[in-house]
């Protein structure tokens, strides 16, 4: 059975249909890419899947339960976390603190407990910090634990956001253009990191522009164009799909 199932998702903004009756399945333990030209509806689909937008029609099912329309924090609690196209880090906090915030759903201390330092608070804090350091190691940022997020270079910020998402102990990670703005070396490092994360048992859905990265890491690809799904399949098939080539060639020609 699939881990995540998208059925007939439609989302309109005013007169524009950003996502039009899109369905696909994500299986556990895979890296699944969602690609498509600019304005294809990829980010909107992500927003719908993570509760940041409500769909006009369709359902999102995670592990057999409907999560459509749930608040974002509830969806995180179920084990689905996301990153953003424009990283949404806490710039005034350190890298370590960012990951600690990411662990919010895995920790319990509330206002009263923290204020009175009730029994267990210290232990939880210590464990959380150890775990946060481990997450930073996964993405190769352990050296930067004390750096202020706002001062970090772009490539590190992308990785930090992934570490923060890992903090929630997710079953499924949705990454929105994680390679945007990265150079070749950083992209290669990112691919390595994604595979390492998948190998720990986390399923990954990635919206991405960088075709090299997508073809390199994905097990399965969904192609959107103008809000509709136009193709679906493993990388080798997608590369040869005439509909995909047409959609992309159009864009490449414009870009060139």
């Amino acid at each position, binding site marked *: 059975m699939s881990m995540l199932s998208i059925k007939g998702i439609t989302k309109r903004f005013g007169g524009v249909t950003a996502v039009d009756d899109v369905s696909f399945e994500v299986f556990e333990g895979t890296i699944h890419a969602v690609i498509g030209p600019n304005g294809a509806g990829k980010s909107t689909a992500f*927003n719908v899947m993570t509760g940041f937008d409500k769909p006009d029609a369709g359902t999102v099912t995670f592990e057999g339960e409907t999560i459509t329309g749930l608040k974002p924090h509830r969806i995180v609690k179920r084990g689905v976390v996301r990153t953003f196209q424009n990283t949404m880090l806490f710039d005034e906090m350190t890298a370590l603190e960012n990951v600690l915030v990411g662990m919010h759903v895995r920790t319990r201390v509330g206002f009263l407990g923290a204020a009175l330092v009730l029994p267990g608070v210290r232990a939880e804090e210590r464990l959380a910090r150890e775990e946060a350091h481990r997450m930073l190691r996964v993405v190769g940022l352990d050296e930067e634990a004390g750096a202020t997020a706002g001062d970090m270079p772009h490539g590190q910020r992308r990785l930090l956001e992934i570490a923060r998402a890992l903090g929630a102990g997710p079953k499924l990670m949705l990454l929105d253009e994680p390679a945007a703005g990265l150079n070749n070396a950083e992209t290669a490092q990112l691919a390595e990191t994604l595979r390492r994360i998948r190998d720990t048992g986390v399923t990954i859905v990635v919206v991405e522009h960088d075709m090299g990265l997508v073809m390199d890491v994905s097990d399965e690809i969904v192609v959107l164009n103008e809000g509709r799904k136009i193709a679906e399949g493993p990388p080798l098939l997608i590369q040869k799909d005439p509909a995909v080539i047409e959609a992309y060639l159009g864009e490449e020609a414009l870009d060139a």
Partner: protein
Amino acid sequence: METSELLQLVIAGLKNGSIYALLALGFTIVYAATNVINFAQGEFYMLGGMFAVFAFTRFGLPLVLAVPVAVLVVAGIGVLFERLAIRPRKDAEPMALIIITVGGSLVFASLARHAFGSDALPLPEFTPGPSIPFAGAAIERQALWIWGIVLVTVAGLTFLYGKTRLGRAMRACMQNREAARLMGIDTARVVMISFGLAAALGALAGVAVTPLTSTRFDIGAGIAVKGFAAAILGGLGSPLAAVAGGLLLGLIEQAVIPFSSALKDVVALAVLLAVLFLRPQGLFRRSRREKV
């Protein structure tokens, strides 16, 4: 209640409402250009009255000169405030700019106390004389002036926005500042002029109302809340909606007077909270969705 009493309340409502409308216009114009709510807007109103009184009594200028001088001086203060305190942080988070204008409000009120003292200062009516009887009610001559000022202001703004290059630039900034800048519009100049214009309108309201209420250094904050309530009623978008919001607020205030005159002062606040909580986009605008 007799119709003449009712009419009298309506007249008073439209008179006060016109003042709120001028303040609401000031809020709206600055907000359109900068996305900043200028908490010092009420101080421009206070300073307008103050400078007019000062020019009239100390310098002995005739009112016909004292009034424009006061408005121009305050417009200059508005421009200066923008240059010195807003522009250096224009890209900061909105919170920082709010706080700066709050600081400006404290400073303006306090400086006014040093300059003009802490007494209430009167100004004669523009055209002294008995009230004009109208269908059993009476209209103060000054109220006619206030309405005239609002009409001329609306006409002037309509002309500015519709027929001039500057107005088109201001409208473009209102739609999308970044796009306007890319189109080659000098947005910094638009922001500066918007502050000057808003200050001038605030001052005009202050000058026009001082003959009826006199003025004091600490009246700015109170009137700013009412002007903001009017602006919020209008939805902080179109100037005409701001004027409508002002007039409506003035009428609502009068509507509670038959029940309790003490309530009049709290009505604007209640309206403000009700609109903020229930219809933050204002009465006249369709709901707008912020994109993720």
